[in-house]
């Protein structure tokens, strides 16, 4: 793997995944769609961490440990975020975040 694929390719794939996720998080109206974009971004970051670990310091276990912690946090974030989506749906009868503007000045 290391000899065949340069590190830059993997980083480019991860960057593309991150930017697609950013676009989704910024421009989706549906709250669940926004959370999906955030999950894509977290996946891209994990991919970066694992790639750096494999190429730059494969003998230390820091990379997998870090990415496992990020997966944990992502799962917690998904649970809380989707619970909030359901709470918003109960109060507003919609999950389109441009109609949920109670905090707008």
């Amino acid at each position: 793997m290391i000899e065949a694929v340069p590190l830059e390719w993997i980083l480019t794939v991860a960057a593309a995944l991150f930017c697609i996720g950013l676009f989704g998080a910024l421009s989706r109206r549906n709250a669940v769609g926004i959370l999906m974009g955030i999950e894509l971004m977290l996946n891209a970051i994990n991919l970066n961490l694992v790639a750096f670990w494999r190429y730059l310091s494969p003998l230390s276990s820091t990379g997998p440990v870090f990415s496992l912690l990020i997966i944990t946090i992502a799962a917690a974030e998904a649970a809380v975020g989707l619970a909030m989506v359901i709470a918003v749906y109960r109060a507003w009868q919609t999950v389109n975040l441009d109609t949920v503007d109670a905090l707008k000045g």
Partner: protein
Amino acid sequence: MEIVVQILFMLISALIIIAALMVVSVKNIIHAALWLFTSFFAVGALYLLLEAEFVAVIQVLVYVGAVSILVLFAIMLTRHVTGEGQNQLYSRWWLGLILALTLFGAIIVPTVFKQKWNIPAPTVVTEPQNAEPVVAGVADIGKAFMREYLLPFEVASLVLLVALIGAIVVVFEERTERRVILTLAESWALRQKESAKVDQ
């Protein structure tokens, strides 16, 4: 051998990128969720290609197994407002597109390709019988979690507990006033009172 790995990498990366593009572009949110799981799976395959087996397994367990089910539940509980009929993007979605494209094309990719990565030379295995492992394996990850990363490990479990309680509190917020949870003694007293009422 190298060309096989390269082709495999290309296929997996193409699957990741196409699935991610479908996630942000399809109108039906259920289809977007299914494409999201495809993307998660492909990222797991890339982890396997990068020889991070444990991370790949956890990716499949947590993302494909748990997060996907959560997302599907959230979609189905809010089903009739997520149909195909309405516009799924903001009216100013091109702002997000410009931002993402600029970040990708003008900042990240030039930085990645200009940077000189000091990749250590691959270790040459001379005696295959008693060769040192080249990559940290599952046992090393377990030792790391139990030794130098014990505090982050515990904090992560605390975060999971807080997220669990927080999610339940947020979702059941409006019902807590109505629902009264009785202790065993109270429910027994209530039952006594009701049976006394029936006797009269």
